[in-house]
């Protein structure tokens, strides 16, 4: 199973963290510090796996962002690379050629998408189309709720004029 997902920028800034196993706040920042030290310093042609505290961290760099997933020793590293790529492709479709800034300002959306791909550290959906559809449906639910709210407040505003 995937124990956590990290997105780290090349400068070592954290862009997204998702923890599927319990870590205290202190442990979390220690993990992030340790791993960014290891991963950011690795050369470009090396393999995408780092052995760390009895786990394996699979990482892949996309532009300025490192996508890291920590898995058990016996998990399939190559498959995790595919899962990372799966996530990146879905982000890319959602934002339309995604960049780091998209993920900074819309970090909550990046989380919503991740929640449609992984639950309990396991893969949930292998179809990008399905994920996109589910996210779109929920976004539109939010939009309608907003519209309703603003129309109600308009009505109230008009009524109290």
């Amino acid at each position, binding site marked *: 199973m995937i124990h956590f997902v990290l997105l780290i920028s090349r400068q070592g800034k954290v862009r997204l963290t998702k923890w599927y196993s319990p870590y205290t706040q202190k442990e979390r920042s220690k993990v992030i510090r340790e791993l960014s030290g290891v991963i950011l310093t690795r050369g470009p042609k090396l393999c995408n796996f780092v052995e760390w505290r009895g786990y394996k961290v699979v990482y892949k760099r996309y532009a300025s962002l490192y996508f890291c997933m920590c898995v058990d020793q016996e998990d399939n590293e190559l498959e995790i690379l595919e899962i990372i790529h799966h996530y990146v492709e879905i982000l890319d479709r959602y934002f339309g050629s995604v960049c780091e800034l998209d993920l900074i300002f819309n970090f909550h959306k990046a989380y919503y998408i991740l929640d449609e791909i992984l639950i309990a550290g396991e893969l949930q959906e292998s179809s990008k189309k*399905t994920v996109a559809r589910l996210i779109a449906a929920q976004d539109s639910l939010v939009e309608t709720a907003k519209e309703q709210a603003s129309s109600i407040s308009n009505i109230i505003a008009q009524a109290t004029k």
Partner: protein
Amino acid sequence: MNPFSSGTRLRDMIRSIRACKTAAEERAVVRKECAAIRAAINENDQDYRHRNLAKLMFIHMLGYPTHFGQMECLKSIASAGFPEKRIGYLGLMLLLDERQEVLMLVTNSLKQDLNHTNQYIVGLALCALGNICSAEMARDLAPEVERLLQFRDPNIRKKAALCSIRIIKKVPDLAENFINPAAALLKEKHHGVLITGIQLVTDLCKVSTEALEFFRKPKCLDGLVKTLRDVVNSPYAPEYDIAGITDPFLHIRLLKLLRVLGQGDADASDCMNDILAQVATKTESNKNAGNAILYECVETIMSIEDNGGLRVLAINILGRFLSNRDNNIRYVALNMLMKAITVDAQAVQRHRATILECVKDLDASIRKRALELVCLLVNESNVKPLTKELIDYLEISDQEFKGDLTAKICSMVEKFSPDKIWYIDQMLKVLSEAGNFVKDEVWHALIVVISNASDLHGYTVRALYRAVQTSIEQESLVRVAIWCIGEYGDMLVNNGGVLNIEDPITVTESDAVDVVEIAIKHHSSDITTKAMAMVALLKLSSRFPSCSERIRDIIVQNKGSLVLELQQRSIEFNSIVEKHQNIRSTLVERMPVLDEATFSGRRAGSLPATVSTSSGTSLNLPNGVAKPAAAPLVDLLDLSSDDAPVPSSSGNDFLQDLLGVDISPASVQPGTSQAPKAGTDVLLDLLSIGSPPVQNNSTPSDILSSSQDNKSSVAKLDGLSPTPSGGAASMIDLLDGFVPNSPKPEDNGPAYPSIVAFESSSLRLTFNFSKPPGNPQTTLIQATFTNLSPNVYTDFVFQAAVPKFLQLHLDPASGNTLPASGNGSITQTLRVTNSQHGKKPLVMRTRIAYKLNNRDVLEEGQINNFPRDL
């Protein structure tokens, strides 16, 4: 309106944080935002709750504390609208984890949402539950999740399946409830449901044997094999296609489940042979997705019950992987070969050359894997070429890799060396290349081996002499070299015991002294090396009388050393060289042969084993008190053999009496070839140049004892065990005078209260304590046994055992019959030496055996209530 709560938009906050040039600026911005959010929380501001939560999450991600927002998440979840719930659940998963008590409060909201009519809200609740639920929540909400496994919308079913995984991992008892609904999921067509369903079944099989039996039945297994066949043969499906393969994720999960089902079940393994062969041969291996499937397939083939043909296929795939240019593929190949080696070692041996190349790879992850694999590949027949390769590589390897590499080479050489001379040769090579990376116990072991190989002493000391000329900066090489030169310096100079294979060299006495002098003066030598060099010099002063003057000069130079230990040695040795010519030669005799068996036994007992598989059974326990059950027994037995009456002190022992040094069992070590006179022996002790106190069973190997604390073991090796300066001074006085003065009355140290060490209805044991003057590590314990029963005890025997950091000596008891009803007692003196004096208190296990009306009685106990600082 509150001036803060007008607030900024999320986007603006992120912008202003990003605009910060320094960490201090960022903190200021965050502080201001947090203040605003708190104010909003206090006012129970509903309009901006959504935005505030989003801000908090961002702040949380930057690493600032956000616990004050946790309740806001719960409120947000409890509100009716989808947008509020969505952000609320996100915050819940981000800001809380399963260990927080607050989480309990959300159980009710979760329950309501799991029954909500809006499927997206149900989805949110399932997602949150799957990611952070605790065992209690799992119990409370399992029925809801179970029901949702049959929900009409497949997207809810798949979420419920993953949520069930979390539940059964938290509460394995619940597994059986999920077996039937999970079996239903396997028949689905929707890939999401199928993937999650298969994953659920896999995890069910891991926690419950009942589930494993259920899914092994042909009814289920055939279905799975058919599903895999369908997906392998399925035509192009754009929705699931990755690199020309339809849904590799589904492939992989099916293969994984087949592995779990086939392991240890020949029938089940048979069912899947065909499809595995098909996957192994038909899958394209030019893209990562295909390789991921092949990798999983190989692992399944290796794990299920034997089928020769399939395994050949699998090993061939790994061979192909190993020669791949992509580092990822090579990494997984090495990884898998480690598992394959238990199945088919011969096949893996074929790839030895390639694996050795991987040890030299640029990539640290690959190197590490390859090195571990090489260590598994070593056997008696290939140890020589493999070691040669690795040692050659040691010269050019990265600094940070040398530590690992040397450790592995050393363990390989130690385990498989065909003869001693080869072992010594290889170790010298390693020490000359990477002596600074070698752990202490490795060179300790080398010294033990050298000491045991009496025909190789001359050869070794000459080889070391040569090696040290070129590699003076390798500390552990220098240590071994000066130890050997000190011991066998004469063989170096007269070319004693020359082997045919050696090139003759001529070394003069002063050349040999040069080496030691360089070591003692070298800037990188630490105190251990210097102290060892000092001892070597003392030994050489006797072996090479012509250099005696020069050696004395070198020794004297350290008289002013800032390090107490060196200063002390310098003064003591100087006085031996100058004034005590007559005893010097006996003092510096060669060390007795070190006992290999004891040393290796100790190592095994007190060090975390180097082989990862056995690390779990290491005896390395934190306080050295709690031992596995067997150990105390052994100790007890050992001790009982020491109980033999001790010869009373002979005339030679006056010094010991004077100094209050523990000498009673100064009877010489059984098995040591030389038996120095008791008097010199104690001198040795005092000067700590040779064997540590010749006391009961554990001695000579003590030198090499690698106790848990590495530092202390080094200290012991060199006899550096700290002596309080007062005591040391008095010894020097005595030595200088060398007259049996009557001891100065000394402070007996603080008095310690007596304790009742053991009390049962029938027996009481009390301890009285005293300290011999000038030796704070040693405690004399007067044990008094009193019989509380109305019957006489006969054949009364008291035994005791202590952890390794203590040394225990039992004097004979005053008798073996204990009169009834407290009308008399037995006394016995115990002498305990605490090597961790001041750090660890005493502790002891006892066993008392006696006969009551001709019936054997045994009473055991542990004594933990010793006064502190004994």
